[in-house]
């Protein structure tokens, strides 16, 4: 007997972390997967790869204009159109872009863009999906935050503030949807070796592999954990960072 395929939606599907989550999901079972991204060429390449890995899966792609990620009406329309194709079991909101902190400090346009893309946009997508999931009373909504959202640091507080917004938003959704059958999972990846952080590798930072981060995420999402640090060791590191008294923290060059 065959059961219906799980329907999964990934926003920002061309990011390395999202792509590796998708690979793990299709390796586990045939799924009905919708990939949403801005670059049609990249999306098509990601989709073709997943089709080879899992010929039984249904892989659909939805291109979206750049503006479609930040304009509230466009976000609503995009989410409604995806849900109209069938009820969704799992959503991963994964888009974002690591800004240049020092550029943001001198150029408010850059700061604004970083806050919108990394904070407001994921929150709008989460809000739009939450309503649909609540209606059917099941499903998992996973949102990628960041360890950077746990405490503001001089080296990247613009990104950190945006991810902090995502964290608080996810927390609110968890409160609202408690007992509804819908799970909201906030994922906080530590620094990961992806194209987005290629320049950090050059500075000698120790980065987790994208495979390792994706595995931790997929496991956490399957369990429906409210907060997933990926890899798990960052839970401890960030607990220490969050609790450092300001007179110590402010002397640290991080």
């Amino acid at each position, binding site marked *: 007997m065959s059961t219906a395929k799980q329907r999964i939606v990934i926003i920002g599907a061309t990011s390395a972390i999202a792509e590796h989550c998708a690979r793990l999901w299709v390796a586990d079972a045939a799924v009905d997967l919708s990939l949403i991204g801005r*670059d049609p*060429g990249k999306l098509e390449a990601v989709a*073709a790869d997943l089709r080879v890995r899992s010929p039984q899966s249904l892989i659909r792609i939805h291109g979206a204009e750049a503006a479609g990620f930040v304009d509230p009406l466009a976000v609503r329309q995009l989410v409604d159109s995806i849900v109209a194709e069938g009820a969704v079991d799992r959503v991963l909101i994964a888009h974002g872009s690591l800004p240049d902190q020092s550029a943001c400090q001198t150029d408010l346009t850059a700061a604004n863009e970083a806050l919108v893309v990394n904070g407001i946009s994921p929150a709008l997508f989460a809000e739009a999906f939450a309503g649909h999931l609540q209606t059917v009373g099941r499903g998992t909504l996973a949102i990628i935050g960041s360890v950077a959202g746990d405490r503001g640091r001089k080296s990247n507080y613009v990104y950190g503030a945006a991810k902090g917004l995502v964290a608080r938003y996810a927390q609110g959704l968890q409160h609202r949807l408690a007992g509804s059958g819908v799970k909201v999972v906030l994922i906080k990846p530590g620094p990961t070796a992806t*194209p987005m952080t*290629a320049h950090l*590798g*050059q500075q000698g930072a120790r980065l987790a592999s994208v495979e390792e981060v994706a595995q931790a995420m997929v496991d956490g999402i399957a369990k429906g954990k409210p907060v997933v640090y990926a890899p798990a060791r960052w839970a401890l590191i960030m607990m220490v960072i969050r609790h450092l008294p300001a007179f110590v923290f402010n002397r640290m060059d991080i």
Partner: protein
Amino acid sequence: MVAVGSWGRLGSWEHQIRTLSHRSRVAGLLHDTQPGIAHGMGRSYGDVCLNPGGMLWLTRGLDRFISLDQDSGRLVCEAGVLLRDIQRLVIPRGWALPVTPGTQLVTVGGAIANDVHGKNHHAAGSFGDHVRRIELQRTDGSDIECGPELRPDWFRATVGGLGLTGVITIAEIQLRRVVGPWLLAETVPYQSLDEFFRLADDSELDWEHTVSWIDCLAPAGGRGLFMRARNTDAGLRPAPRSRALAMPFVPPVSLVNKLSLRPFNLAYYNIGKRRAGSHIVHYEPFFYPLDNVRDWNRMYGPRGFFQYQCVVPRAVGRDAVQAILGQIAGAGAGSFLAVLKTFGERAAPGMLSFPQPGVTLALDFPNQGTRTRQLFERLDVIVGEAGGRLYPAKDARMPRALFEAGYPRLAEFLPHRDPGISSAMSRRLMGS
């Protein structure tokens, strides 16, 4: 800048790095840089994948499959895909890579650029023999599509071309049919080189895979274990639970040393001899015994190690191998991962491909500085006089004259180089 080394751990050097992650963006990332070289898993042992002070283009992000025709076994994929990922994808579907080296943790691009070979060379040739199409990105922004029939000169320059003709972005590979992941394997102890050659000749017809471990410390020389295997239908049985081992730290001195080698080799030979006979084995432990020991290259200590792999023509093969083993014994050196294998009688696909008809011997030596290099100079003489050559993928030190003598098609290759590509090896062996 970031410090990058290669598998031999002879050092690490500062490089600029750029990550290639989407094939549509590669042209732009190669364009406006200083000369660089593609770098995949860094599993080559010497300097073919290094460019100290310069640029490395990391290809691991180009790791997407593009298509797989289940009926014909044609696989198209990006160049940063690992051989492991191909094997795990296609073997359950009744296909396999036709040629695979002793580690599956290498990229397709690296396998082509070094034209790697495996235990079935006598039956299947080298990796490049099964590549049907390559897409090559040049640093001037142009791209070249080539294959055995399409622009064959570019194809033959790129297969085994050490990454110097452009960055390989996409490859099409003809897979071969298999009846599952199992092999029927047989281990036969041998007592002399003559016996090794007899076994090799007798096995070629019926056994797709042949290889041997040779105990280079045995008094008479030439004692070893001959292993042969072929794909077999062993039905459905559970894949072995591989117990992943790791070398968790770099020991202060090489664990492979004068004191350890003799007992290592004695034990390895005798355990192998006791287990002689045939058995069913999963392809992963048979083809990739060391992949299960993460960071095994650390066991040679902080100074790293060299591999010395040569091929010499069959007519002089026995004498040359005997002479090499004699030199090693005379130097009081020794090797643990010593591998002896016959290559088939076939022309290699690439202008700079390593395999040629004859016998190949691969040896590992902890880096002991001048002593080790002096031993290599004596081995070079033997290889040169035998009309043999060394394997660039494993090399960190061969003299330019030996390279030029061993690779007579070099002049034909050079016009295909991309002027925006340079590696430590290309500067050492080709002057630029």
